């Protein structure tokens, strides 16, 4: 039980994610979380504006149910399966973050400097979250997938396009982390 409550090491978590991928393949589906954003747009009536959203959302019902499950899973894990152990970040990472004025790195899952209500209440704070979300939504659909669709499923299925997409993920992530975050914070 104690092991269950502690953070799980990569060699436990990674294989469990592979099981998710394989289960979905066995169920005749392809693991891809970002597709749901398109489905949400369709449900919100986006089909009136672009044919890209004119599809039968019911074919994605399984994926919407999966999203609901992930929310429940997040609730269960954070309320019943944790002992509050801080994230064991590299001390160098913690130091680098202090330089960017991120204090208490690893104390919570997400930095209050970005996600606390008072951070969001500032123009800068809310702009950052909106721009970040927009880039994720635009980029993932342009690339035809995100971490689950390309990095996990596509690479496992030896897809060259997925490798190119993952290289793109890293180009973008490295630019943001090394050059843009130091300007923003």
């Amino acid at each position, binding site marked *: 039980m104690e092991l269950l409550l502690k953070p799980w090491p990569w060699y436990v978590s990674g294989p469990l994610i592979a*099981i998710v991928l394989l289960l979905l393949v066995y169920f005749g589906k392809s693991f891809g979380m970002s597709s749901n954003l398109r489905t949400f747009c369709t449900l919100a009536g986006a089909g009136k504006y672009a044919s890209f959203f004119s599809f039968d959302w019911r074919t994605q019902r399984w994926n919407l*149910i999966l999203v609901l499950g992930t929310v429940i899973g997040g609730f269960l894990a954070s309320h019943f399966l944790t002992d509050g152990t801080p994230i064991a970040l590299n001390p160098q990472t913690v130091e680098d973050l202090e330089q960017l004025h991120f204090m208490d*790195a690893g104390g919570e899952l997400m930095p209050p400097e970005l996600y606390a209500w008072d951070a969001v209440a500032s123009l800068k704070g*809310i702009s950052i979250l*909106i721009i970040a979300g927009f880039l994720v*939504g*635009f980029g993932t659909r342009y690339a035809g997938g995100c971490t689950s669709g390309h990095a996990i499923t596509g690479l496992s299925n030896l897809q060259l396009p997925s490798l190119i997409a993952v290289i*793109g993920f890293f*180009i*973008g992530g490295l630019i943001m982390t090394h050059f843009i975050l130091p300007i923003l914070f």
Partner: protein
Amino acid sequence: MKLMKFLLVGIFFGIVLVKSEAVSWYRIFEMFKFQSFHMYGIIGSAVVLGMLGLFLLRKSGLKNITGDPISLASKEKGVTRYLVGGTIFGLGWALAGACPGPMYILVGTGLFTIVIVILAAMLGTFAYGLLRNKLPH
């Protein structure tokens, strides 16, 4: 009832991503700083075992739940959309510290401000849908 299994897979996935800390902004930052093996270990072992699992599933000739052979659609060929779209996604990923799976999981953990990111991601997806025919793919 047919959909129940997807709910269970989702719950399982949500728990794994929280317990692995892969839903944490800090872990994403650390990964892009190359300061920990943690995220590389998670993704790397998932891919290696996924590869092995897919290979064995296909080789075994096992049918999927609907009675069809095990198969996964190939991605369309191309470079531009994957490289440019991927880079745009990466910029957002490292800024928000969450990708399209963790976004929902984080709502479950009680981080309600992430809903702003989800709504903005819908807006980004909508913008792509509008511009799709004008973008190089």
